[in-house]
């Protein structure tokens, strides 16, 4: 009998195979190229208007890209990622296959969850690497923007990636639960898009932070302010809200994965 870790390794490998060729996979590995291409063109043609004059351009450059990426692209990406990965099983009615293979139900749940977070992590890392690459390219093709005058701020890059990534954990767990429970992809995506729209409407409301899409959407924007004000990377309220959603919905989905009649 294989250990739980060996089972997890095999199930995770199977999840990797399943995810290949899905829209979630392409969005993760092609999406960042598309986003960065848009920004690269924007900074190439309008860089002097977009960047503050006579200042190290790296941090404003990175913060501007991630502000827009977190506000617009990230919510849509997370909705599509969760709905694609879970709908793969609903659409093909392959839960029945998954539940008749010799894996524990916990392994079935956690391997899929791990795949979801791995793709999310990959998208974040790739976006940051491409952001840096775009800055380096601008240094070469548009030297007057000043990218050659200072070093790449690796620490800020790592911190900003970590902030946006961690802020996405709560909503990703919510989407996982929703897409796990709802077979209809249109319905599950509808719920995700509604949460996204609600935040854009009530962003100024004092309790808007309780909406699970709030923190991931403002995470890119808030980083620049945090650096300017010398505040810690994560506020307590932010960690409690994001962590609360993450724990609550992960546990709920885990419980349902072990008890729901998935394969009937």
């Amino acid at each position, binding site marked *: *009998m294989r250990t739980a870790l060996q089972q997890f390794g095999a199930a995770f490998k199977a999840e990797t195979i399943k995810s290949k060729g899905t829209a979630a996979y392409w969005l993760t590995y092609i999406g960042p190229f598309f986003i960065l291409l848009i920004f690269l063109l924007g900074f190439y043609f309008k860089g002097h208007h977009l960047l503050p004059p006579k200042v190290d351009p790296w941090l404003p450059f990175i913060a501007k890209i991630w502000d827009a990426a977190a506000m617009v692209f990230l919510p849509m990406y997370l909705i599509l990622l969760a709905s694609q990965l879970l709908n*793969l099983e609903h659409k093909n009615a392959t839960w029945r*296959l998954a539940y008749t*293979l010799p894996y524990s139900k916990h392994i079935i749940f956690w391997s899929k969850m791990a795949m979801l977070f791995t793709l999310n992590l990959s998208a974040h890392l790739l976006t940051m690497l491409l952001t840096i690459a775009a800055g380096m390219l601008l240094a070469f093709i548009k030297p007057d923007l000043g990218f050659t005058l200072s070093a790449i701020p690796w620490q800020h890059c790592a911190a900003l990636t970590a902030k946006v990534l961690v802020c996405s954990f709560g909503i990703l767990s919510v989407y996982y639960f929703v897409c796990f429970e709802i077979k209809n992809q249109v319905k599950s995506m509808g719920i995700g898009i509604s949460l996204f729209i609600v935040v854009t409407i009530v962003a100024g409301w004092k309790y808007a932070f309780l909406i699970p899409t709030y923190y991931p959407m403002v995470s890119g924007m808030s980083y620049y302010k945090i650096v300017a004000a010398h505040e810690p990377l994560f506020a307590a309220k932010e960690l409690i809200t994001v962590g609360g959603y993450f724990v609550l919905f992960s546990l709920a989905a885990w419980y349902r994965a072990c008890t729901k009649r998935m394969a*009937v």
Partner: protein
Amino acid sequence: MQPIVELNNVSFAYPNGVKVLNRFSLRIPQGSIYGFLGPNGSGKSTTIRVVMGLLKAQEGIVTVFGDSHSTSRIAILSRIGSLIDTPNFYEHLTAYRNLEIVRLAHDLPQQTIAEALQLVGLSATAKLKVSEFSLGMKQRLALAMALLPKPELLVLDEPSNGLDPNGIIEIRELLIRINQQLGTTIFVSSHLLSEVEKLCTHLSIINQGQAVFEGPIEQLTERIATQKRVWFTVGSTEGLSSVLDRPLEIRQNGSIKVGFEYTTDREIARCNHQLVTQGVEVFGIHKEHQTLEEMYVKLLEDNK
């Protein structure tokens, strides 16, 4: 010998209250090809799901390889290959990749995939996406996925669905071969009575969640052999019951037909002689043998 699968007085009802299995019992002997027959909605698929641990029986005992799913789920599933209901695949992947997913779960060597594909005649299409497969090819692939771990128990729900007559014969021969060569126990549900008759060593017939028949297939064929019927076309029914001292069935549809069960041809000759001697005109004699299909229908009717 302990049966591979044993269901003892199992009951199951869905949340809407519909009771699908009602104190249903079944024993699948090791090494058998066990056919499972029943009309639509009789509880066949539910029984298969209970055996596979996808559904939990509310009453009764379910053991597979002598263990229960609640205590030995992974150990049980690692010894079973299954094809439940319609075959389910990751359609965006190739046949090879679908088999790879099963291979990883069972921790098997890589070459088992090529062997399984060859076994079902899909080697040439291994790199094709499943979405491009015909129904028959999908059925073969599903069978390859079930056979991949060389299981001790093969659970197949309608494996001949979507196959042409040649395909049906090939699959039948394949199942018989793996049963004889590898000793694999096969639990197969089917609507094709003739297939069941040719393939299976044992049979269970289920109707409205209850067992109607269970046993070696010879037991049923013996019953068929003993329940033979003969029809006499006669001129009138007058005095028939005094001449033929046995339960009679009379049909008057243009001509008058008198039917009764018999065991030997000599018995028919004797009855004919008695009728003619007593002045009853006999216009014709017709022997009727019950087929498996008729026996199946009769068993279901008796159970209503």
